[in-house]
């Protein structure tokens, strides 16, 4: 089961290698430019692989990917999983 922490770990260690500021769960990562287009594509690929889901391109929008919280909520809804911690 994917958790907010596991998404955060992927973002901080793989996508933002060397990023030292802690990421808040409700922090905007897209409009602020913390994640660029390529990182968003990599993140979508990671979530697809980890959760065994397909993320349609029309779902890659602010409402689903702006914060760690929203990403987790989206994946939970997409997979029908119970929310992890």
């Amino acid at each position, binding site marked *: 089961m994917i958790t907010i922490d596991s998404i955060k770990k992927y973002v901080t260690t793989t996508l933002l290698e060397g990023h030292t500021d802690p990421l808040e769960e409700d922090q905007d990562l897209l409009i602020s430019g913390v994640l660029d287009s390529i990182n968003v594509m990599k993140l979508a690929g990671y979530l697809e692989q980890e959760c065994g889901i397909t993320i349609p391109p029309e779902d*890659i929008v602010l409402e689903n990917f702006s914060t760690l919280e929203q990403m987790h909520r989206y994946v939970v809804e997409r997979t029908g999983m119970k929310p992890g911690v």
Partner: protein
Amino acid sequence: MDFSRSSEVELKYKQTRDFASAELNGDVIERDSNSVFPIELWKRCAEHGVLSWFMPEAYGGGGHSALTTSYLLEALGHGCCDNGLTFALGAQLWSVQKSILQFGTTDQIERYLPGFMKGTIKGAFAITENGSGSDAFALTTTAQRDGDSYVLNGEKCMITLAPVADVAIIFAVTNPDAGQWGLSSFLVDTRTKGLRQSDNIPKMGLRTVPFGNITLNNCRVPVTCLLGSEGSASSIFNYSQSWERSLVLAPQLGAMQRLIDQSITFSKQRMRSGQSIGKFQSISHRIANMRIRLETSRLLLYKTAWLLDTGKQSVTEAAIAKTHISEAFVATCSDAIAIHGGSGYLTETEVERQSRDALGATIYGGTVDIQRNIISGMLGV
């Protein structure tokens, strides 16, 4: 991964190559010289099925996979010497039709797809502006919501098919505070008041496909013109580009095969010092290199098409395919000119035109430098 083909598809390849060779090349030198868009040939290609092969059967299309469609587009490029025509067909298919199919409402799909497939309407993908290009999302065109409408203002530049398009996907800023996530796209009928299409802008190659600007001056469109949701334009762009980058160069595989065939024929007929020039390694090695490039290009494109068919992410593979095939096409054209010597520089040999057309492939759909940015970015560099 399986690239094998049925006998039915092989037959369709031959029929398409023969159709293209017999019907699409008549006055190609004059068309290129005068920058004439062959509208009747566009319609003939549509009647042959070029714009339908990939479309779902539910909408009257052929229901073919990306892999099979690519192979048939390769056949089109093998027979058709007009790279502008084959490029334009691919641009509409992968950027416009595929975007509408993926993001459009049922009403939008049913309104536009039949006309695209029949060749009675043409579509343009209008994102580029003077200040954007490689910085694709740095747009200044705005779409302001006003009741049940959006009002569009701005100018799109260097848009394929813009002077002749009946409908355009227009990318515009709807939320200026949200960067690329504040962009939206609209399906706009080009007869809409406030929209103006420029004349064709002359260019180095691909002269038979019109290229131009679209100006929007208080162009009011209903909210039903929104393609996808508000703020989804960057996803639409990334999605459509992954398809276009992967597959728009399929006809160029056929063009490379055609150049190899032409170079082999020439190298066997042309005599120097009592033997055909093909006996000289400076010639035969060039032809071998052309064949190596074609083989690697085919494998990259087929693999990317297969990934798209299976729904797997293909961001890196699409960028690799786009870079390799476009550069292979340029190198193959240079080799063909070198093999033909002085005659290769002449318009009537038709090799020089291929070379002018080929350079465009390193630019459109994202330059090869941008593709290398994507490849290195995906590697975490």
